[in-house]
């Protein structure tokens, strides 16, 4: 156990737990966040960020690392510390660049460019226009109005979890059941989002 009363996992144990589901995964997420949270102080001293900015950079770092570990993009060539520090350093530099160039907002179509790039130019341009016109804060609000199970299904989907993984997290029998339920929830969200 470490000083805070939780178990001290090795890098490999954390990675293995993060690639599974259940309690160990959650605990490992927490462990990963806690283990390098002193980076926040470094962001404040080395990069002269405010505490909130450094916290945001560090949280985004952990979230990015969690996704990369889950997707096996992280190949364990470096230690978790080195890996996270690289991401954190880049996030801090990005933040400073955004502050100095006043480029605080990113165009929506840039965020979802991967999927948009699958479309031909003319189709992409039509969809891009509609995405830019969409009211995302209303969409967020309506998502939060859905029943909890629906909300969870859509949030896992939004984080690129597969239907098989979601089935394991939310105790559905099969990935097919997840897909049907998820699309039903998405349809419900669309209806309440479109309703006046």
């Amino acid at each position, binding site marked *: *156990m470490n000083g*805070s*009363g*939780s*178990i001290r996992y090795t890098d490999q144990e954390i990675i293995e737990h993060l690639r599974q589901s259940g*309690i160990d995964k*959650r*605990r490992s*997420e*927490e462990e990963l*966040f*806690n283990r390098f*949270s002193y980076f*926040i102080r470094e962001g404040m001293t080395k990069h002269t960020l405010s505490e909130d900015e450094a*916290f*945001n950079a560090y*949280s*985004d770092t*952990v*979230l990015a690392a969690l996704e990369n570990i889950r997707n096996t993009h992280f190949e364990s060539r470096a230690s978790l510390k080195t890996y996270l520090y690289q991401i954190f350093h880049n996030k801090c530099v990005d933040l400073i660049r955004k502050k100095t160039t006043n480029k605080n907002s990113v165009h*929506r179509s840039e*965020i*979802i460019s991967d*999927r*948009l790039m*699958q*479309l*031909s130019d*003319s*189709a992409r341009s*039509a*969809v891009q226009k*509609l*995405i830019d016109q*969409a009211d*995302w804060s209303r*969409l*967020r609000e309506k*998502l*939060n109005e859905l029943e*909890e*199970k629906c909300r*969870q299904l*859509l*949030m*896992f*989907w*939004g*984080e*690129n979890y597969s239907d098989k993984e979601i089935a394991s997290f*939310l*105790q559905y029998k099969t990935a097919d059941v997840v897909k049907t339920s998820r*699309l*039903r929830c*998405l*349809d419900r*969200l*669309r209806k309440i*989002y479109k309703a006046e």
Partner: protein
Amino acid sequence: MDNLDYIENYFTGEPEASLKKEFEERIISDPEFADEVAFYLSAKQVSGEVSRLEKKGQFKEIYQSKKKTASTPVRKLVYYFAAAAVAAGIIFGTYTITNTASPKEMANQYIQSNLQNLGVKMGGGADSIQDGLRLYNDGNMTEALATFEKIARADTSSFNAKKYAGIAALRLKEFQKALSYFEQLEIYSGYYSNPALLLQAVTLMERDQPGDLAKAKLLLQKVVDNDLEGKEMAVEWLKKM
């Protein structure tokens, strides 16, 4: 919904050239379909963002809690003693009645002894939490659950809103929802009184479906192994399971 399925298949699969062309032509010729494609992509992005924001909220709670701990060691001791006293009370109060009961009965007795009424704490958070607790203590479980869920959504870092929402769901026998809230509590390591695993075990014991008892045992064993809240209770229960 058919269109959503069709849209999803396009973005998640590798459509043949003819299907790809048909899909893209439909976007250009059918504004409603184009709108559905834009909605699908926006909803995926927004859902992911909401999820990440919730996680960041939990990280913030942990971070602030750690900072508080570092600056107030005396308070830490007080919490430890308070938690120990509560745990001792719970054990003393339930030891005799759980001596011969089945897991479901033990869970039931735990709920009757410990979750029948929830203490309204002085200065224990936003007023609406207190409103929820009042509804809960008056037996208006559905309204109490709705109140706690609303707070949990508005303030995704609220440990108490999630804990009480889970407890209210448990009382309403909405077991899956209760488990979901209790699982979310696990990330709050900074809380000295965090019954996340114990409450999950109680929920599983109370639900008593195939496989639940085995999972409950594993959770209780983790409570014991990691010296978490409810350890003494978990030891007693494990002896009887």
